[in-house]
């Protein structure tokens, strides 16, 4: 056992160091390996060195190995096949599987404890020796299961939404319904715990029908599952990254709680570390959008607010020819490209890099302005552009970009919408009011590429499109950029 404790310590240190290294660009990749090393060591050591309290080793090792191997094969395959643009939903999916794992652990642990109990046929109660199952144990099982389940069902919904298979669903009084489900869940858990006194453990004390004790836990699981669905369902638009980050920290907490159950240090450090880090990341993201977590969770991107702004804006926009775009950019001194989700969808990052190199060769200064929540995840654009070998120093963050727009000749907006919407600054009724934006209207000329005039992910109209300095180019970002590149070459 002592060897295992040392190994767990090593693994915990590997997680901490790995996470630390992951937060610096130079060491990030090593950091990922460090953490993975800690994980492998911990898993292998658990299989071979873990002893139960009564000194027995683990059973069913062949089953465990098969599950590990199948999981590894499928995990590697899925992770390697996925397109870079689908990264957000992939993270969400893997997060969901972790949540599901925590959920199943709690259910099985409960069933395991039930197995130690005996049914008293005279009084129709289940009796468990109190040293086997304590109140705190039961509390940990239930709370761990609930958090894991919410994370599971929530992540699946987030996955389907990002995937496009599911649309945002909101209805009137939705958050009343959500609160109702949440309170029912809490009430049920309190009742569940209350009817499980310490001394003698009544699991079906009121039932004459001999309902299996596990059913009472599964009801809590079911309510939590429903809550997870309703929790993510109304959240849409720009708030999706926040939700993924929040669910990520949920799973971390669930893993940590499962660790408390087994007094397993590496699970506690790993889980709680992620829980805390994920929560902070969530808050940082909320700050970047200038929205409170409460607003995000209640889902204040309500349909009523959308309608107001949609009705108000119906101006005229002007289109521009590709040749003119090329001319504009080729003779500019400074061009700033603002990438958004449209770039990701069109897989236009490589063409974009080509355009940038071409312009640089012509002596044009080119930079990319990255809004913290552009795309569907923080840093989504950075990942994409890095894939196309765009050097770091070309990517500038929002504050720096905003100070540079006044000296910029051409801003090329590629499939970004909400992050450049001036309504965030001017229109107090707008759902995104208060979110810091890229102030592209400071530049001399704005060229916006979109597929259609449809509003962006947050579902709000953008008055920037009707701005006097704005010209629109409609079409797939990749095709448009390739045409621009061809035109510039022809100049």
């Amino acid at each position, binding site marked *: 056992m002592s060897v295992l404790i040392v190994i767990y310590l090593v693994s915990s240190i590997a997680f901490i160091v790995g996470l630390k290294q992951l937060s610096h660009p130079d060491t990030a990749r090593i950091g*990922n390996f460090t953490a993975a090393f800690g994980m492998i060591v911990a898993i292998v050591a658990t299989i071979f060195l873990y002893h139960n309290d009564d000194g027995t080793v683990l059973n069913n090792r062949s089953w465990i190995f098969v*599950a590990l191997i199948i999981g590894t094969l499928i995990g590697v395959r899925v992770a390697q096949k996925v397109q870079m643009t689908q990264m957000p939903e992939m993270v969400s999916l*893997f997060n969901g599987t972790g949540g*599901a794992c925590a959920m199943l652990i709690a259910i099985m642990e409960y069933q395991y404890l039930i197995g130690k109990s005996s049914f008293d046929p005279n009084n129709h109660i289940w009796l468990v020796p109190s040293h086997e199952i304590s109140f705190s144990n039961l509390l940990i099982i239930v709370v761990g299961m609930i958090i894991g389940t919410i994370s599971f069902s929530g992540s699946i919904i987030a996955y389907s939404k990002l995937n496009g298979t599911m649309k945002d669903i909101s209805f009137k009084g939705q958050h009343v319904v959500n609160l109702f489900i949440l309170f029912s869940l809490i009430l049920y858990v309190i009742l569940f715990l209350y009817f499980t006194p310490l001394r003698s453990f009544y699991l079906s004390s009121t039932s004459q029908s001999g309902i299996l004790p596990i059913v009472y836990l599964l009801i809590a699981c079911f309510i939590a599952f429903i809550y997870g669905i309703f929790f993510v369902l109304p959240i849409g638009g720009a708030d999706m990254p926040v939700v993924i980050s929040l669910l*990520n920290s949920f799973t971390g907490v669930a893993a940590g709680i499962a660790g408390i159950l087994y007094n397993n240090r590496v699970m506690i450090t790993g889980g*709680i570390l992620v*829980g805390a880090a994920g929560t902070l990341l969530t808050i940082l993201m909320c700050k970047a959008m200038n929205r409170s977590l409460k607003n995000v969770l209640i889902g204040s991107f309500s349909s009523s607010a959308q309608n107001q702004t949609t009705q108000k804006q119906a101006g005229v926009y002007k289109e521009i020819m590709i040749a003119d775009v090329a001319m504009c950019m080729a003779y500019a001194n400074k061009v700033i490209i603002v990438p958004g989700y449209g770039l990701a969808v069109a897989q236009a990052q490589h063409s974009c890099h080509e355009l940038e190199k071409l312009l640089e060769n012509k002596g044009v200064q080119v930079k990319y302005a990255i809004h913290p929540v552009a795309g569907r995840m923080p840093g989504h654009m950075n*990942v994409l552009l890095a894939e196309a070998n765009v050097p770091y120093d070309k990517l500038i963050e929002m504050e720096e970009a905003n100070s540079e727009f006044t000296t910029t000749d051409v801003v090329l907006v590629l499939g970004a919408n909400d992050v450049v919407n001036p309504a965030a600054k001017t229109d107090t009724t707008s759902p995104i009011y208060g979110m810091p934006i890229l102030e592209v209207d400071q530049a001399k000329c704005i060229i916006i590429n979109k597929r259609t005039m449809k509003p962006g992910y947050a579902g709000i109209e953008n008055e920037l499109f009707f701005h006097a300095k704005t010209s629109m180019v409609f079409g797939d970002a990749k095709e448009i950029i390739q045409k621009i590149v061809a035109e510039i070459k022809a100049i």
Partner: protein
Amino acid sequence: MDMSSLSNAFQSNVDLSYIIILSIFLGVEVISKVPSILHTPLMSGANAIHGVVVIGSIIVMGRIHENDYISLVIGFCAVFLGTLNVVGGFVVTDRMLKMFKKKK
């Protein structure tokens, strides 16, 4: 519900409480200096780390009686899902980070 049992549980697990509290501070500290360009890989890496929950599923699985097929199937699913979280998480993170090549 018995508050004294809760406080007993707390007292018998003082070191556990220390680990939890220190881990919280550590998690916050580690993340607070992250440049926004690494947010996605970091989230993904953290996602892989909470896959440590798979250890819990291995422990539960190892305690199941060999003839309890229902539990075995559930346990199998738990280990499988946990492994997916770990492996998928790390591979995806590595794929992202591979692209962050240095160019000076």
